[in-house]
């Protein structure tokens, strides 16, 4: 299986007053297509910044980001937008649904953007998969937090992305709802064969991915396979 995400010597700095603030310092790693990975680290360590750079939401100060063999750092913002639309799915901590669109319309947006037609049934199927078939015509403000995150999941998978980025997907949810949402993420991900990059504080959730990279003070301090990762590797090797 090929590499879907290749990060080389990635650095992100900000100018603050007269001094330079280094948020990410020379980070390198590669991720195989179809695998799952967590980025963990304390608050302010640079996890979200790394996620933003990997997903093409921001530009690095130096270094390379290659997503599905496309060098993101060479693209304009609009070209990166197109890459996001075609290859990337997102799940956010605060759901980020469009407040003026109904649940089903939110799910349809990525496909509509591609100019695809007759997508309503596909969107309805996805809502059905996340258990919200009967809430399709509700606005985000009429849904609970868990329901909103499930709509956001359906949206993330709607354009059949190659890679899914999830930023603290359960950060705003209670324990019980979190469990359901995490299960959904992993089930849908497995079913679709999508690569998953998860940013989280939750080590239990992180352990469900095959690989964990740890960041502290903007630097990568460890990169290791989890037990499920090793198991997969063994199965792969044995298979």
């Amino acid at each position, binding site marked *: 299986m090929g590499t879907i995400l290749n990060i080389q010597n990635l650095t992100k700095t900000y100018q603050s007053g007269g001094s330079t603030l280094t948020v990410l310092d020379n980070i390198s790693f590669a991720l195989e297509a179809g695998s799952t990975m967590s980025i963990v680290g304390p608050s302010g360590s640079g996890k*979200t910044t790394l996620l933003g750079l990997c997903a093409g*939401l921001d530009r690095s100060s130096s270094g390379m980001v290659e997503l599905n063999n496309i060098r993101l750092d060479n*693209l304009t913002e*609009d070209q990166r937008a197109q890459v996001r639309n075609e290859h990337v799915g997102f799940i*956010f901590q605060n759901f980020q649904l469009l407040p*003026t669109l109904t649940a089903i319309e939110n799910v349809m947006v990525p496909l*509509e*953007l591609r*100019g695809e037609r007759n997508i309503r049934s596909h969107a309805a199927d996805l809502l059905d998969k996340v258990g919200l078939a009967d809430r399709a015509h509700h606005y985000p403000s009429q849904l609970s937090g868990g329901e909103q995150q499930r709509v956001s999941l359906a949206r993330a998978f709607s354009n059949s992305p190659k890679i899914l980025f999830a930023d603290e997907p359960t950060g705003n949810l209670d324990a019980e709802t979190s469990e359901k949402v995490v299960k959904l993420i992993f089930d849908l991900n497995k079913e679709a064969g999508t690569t998953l990059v998860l940013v989280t504080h939750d080590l239990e959730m992180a352990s469900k991915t095959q690989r964990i990279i740890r960041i502290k003070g903007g630097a990568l301090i460890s990169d290791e396979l989890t037990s499920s990762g090793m198991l997969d590797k063994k199965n792969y090797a044995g298979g």
Partner: protein
Amino acid sequence: MPEDNIVPSVAKNSLNFRWLILMAWRDSRRNRSRLFLFVSSIILGIAAIVAIYSFEYNLRQDIDSQAKSLLGADLVIETNKAVKEDIRPVLMALGDERSEERTFASMIYFPKNQGTRLVNVRALQGAYPYYGSIETSPAGAGTSFRASRSALVDKTLMLQFDAKVGDSVKVGELSFRIAGVLNKAPGQTGFSASVAPVVYIPLRYLEQTGLSQKGSRINYNFYFKFAENVNVDLLADKLEPRLEKAEMDAETVESHKEDTGRSFEDMTEFLALVGFVALLLGCIGVASAIHIYIREKINTIAILRCLGVSSKQAFIIYLIQIIGIGLIGSVIGAIVGTLIQQFLPLVLADFLPVEITVAISWAAITQGLLLGLVISILFALLPLVSVRNISPLNTLRISFQETSLFKDPVKWLVYLLIVSFVFAFTYFQMDSFRKTIYFTGGVLLAFLILSALAYLMMWLARKFFPSSWSYLWRQGFANLFRPNNQTLILVVSIGLGTAFICTLFFVQGILINRVTMSSSQNQPNMVLFDIQGEQRQAVRQLTQSMSLPVIQEVPIVNMRMTEIKGRNAASFKNDSTARGARRALDREYRVTYRDSLSDSEKITEGKWTGRAGQGQPVYVSLEDGFARRIDVKIGDKLTFNVQGTPMETVVGSIRKVDWNRIQTNFLLIFPAGVLEDAPQFHVLLTKVPSNEVSAKYQRAVVKTFPNISMIDLGLVLSVLDEILTKMGFVIRFMAAFSIITGLIVLIASVLISKYQRIKESVLLRTLGASRKQILIITALEYFFLGALAAGAGIVLALLASWGLAKFSFETTFAPEMLPVLVLFVLISSLTVLIGLFNSRGVLNKPPLEVLRSEV
């Protein structure tokens, strides 16, 4: 290599318009009432413009259809000099029917109650008007008065002197029976009737009135009716050289139509610009509302960007919304404008010579729609271009930084587009480069001054923040400069409206003041003119016998200028640079002679010569502006025709003249010792202490010297007052559009700020603030805002009026401040009321409910 691994091109990501429109529609769903609020700001501006344009189109059509009755004949030939004998046979041979009329100013006398008044006498012979009619009551009087020694008297005069049909009126030395009340002469407006009321008499009695020989100007009009198939314009062109030689002018229906249309263009041009200012105000409202709207949309835009929407697409989604609301606003504006148009003829009736029909003008509506659409988009673009710079990163953390003007050249482009558009629109209205620059510059300056005042006030409020005030006062005061404040937008919009009203008020005051001041103290307030040489002594004696002072007595000689620096009119004819000289050679001058300067004159160049020396050149003195217009200097030669006698003169001095003084002032003064024997008449200035003495004096003069005309300054004052009131009403009517637009912008800003301030108010309430406390904070904030805005407007009006008084009217400016104070209190209170009314939702509901429903 698989297709999806190719680096994407922007072109591949097509704009997908159908989806963009769908998104714009969906996105607007939960904001429609707010979007409508933005739109409401431009409705009145568009309405004003559509109303004025519709009115203009209808007026033009009405002038077209009523042009014949406006003129009353197919051809009019006119002159202000006695008709030369050699042209008479030509005039007598023209047309199928002919009428002749002489018009001049003269006093009339009502024997019943001994009233006198200066009027415009029209001595008529023939069946004129051939089209339309002289409107009278009883209806037949317009025709029948010509058959006997009868007169038609203007209805305002009839009312003023309580005269009835059948009474008599004395014109000159002859009495006429009043055959009817003159309601409207052909082409006359209500306005011209009040300035110079008309009295018709049959021409054949003119000789017996003794007024046909008087010194003052008589206009000779000849009216002709032609058979349908005659091309009158062609005929007029052919006649022109001969008429020019005879110093006569021809006017046809076509040329009169153009003249009338042109004179109303100025009026509609002015009104359209007032409407345009209201529209600009509304657009500023739209821009500020969209600015806040876009700020609230940052997250939505960031999510869309995350999902793959390009910056162009995001921009277009919101542009489509703006186009939509701009269109809706313009359509509503056009409908309102078409309705308002029904009332315009009522407001403007006194200024119009034709009956106005009210019809829907699709041309006006189309123009209004286009204008509304273009200008609302242009102004909305200012905040809208920021959409391009909203990063998808905002989904992860809000870090929206507004791009500054210097960093985003597109913003400069938008500003440039706006100024260019304002300039182009104004040029389209005014058709004059200079006026357009003045107007655009003036509007820009007003906006800049008001913005500067707003910033200054914010800076002062922050700098000298009253820390010792109570919490509620401090909170209300601080809202003036805290983030999301509305100080700038409200100071500009309400300020401009206030400035409009105040300037109007001040200018009216300046004009009235000038005339009133002139009539006070020892300034003359009564002018007698057309005094013949032999009457001079007797008039002086009569005046003094009534204990009235003879303040000034001036001889006047009529003459024409025939050559300037040795060149006559023919040699200037094709010289396009000598317009002033051409005009100067085409008019009659009323000239005086004396041996000394008056106290309103000052020599600026050359040397004053009081008395012409024997065998010396005649040194005349010219007013400085006049000398400049005809381009002459000290020592240049001027030749005059003094009623048949040629006279060579030399420019001896140039004078500065204070025209503001009520006294006779002259462009040209001859030295004593030259014109004493020329045919001349005299003007006498006196001062009457009261209306009773004025009436008595006028009666005495008119009875003894019927040819002498008198101007009572009291009457001039009341006529001026009437004109200003009528004009003031029209201007106030138009200014109301700006004021109401200002109020709508206020309502919109208050409602929009409600969304901004709601969290804060709810938080305060959650922390235990009472309803009353929130109410006081809100009321204080709006009071400060209203007071600042009204104050800024008044400051601007004071500046503008002072400038007008000093440079345009050349008088001192002493504004009456009490009414302005009332206006200040009114606008401040209105702002507070609107602010409180719109915030009542936050005040009356429990905090949680508000948070759930509004945020």
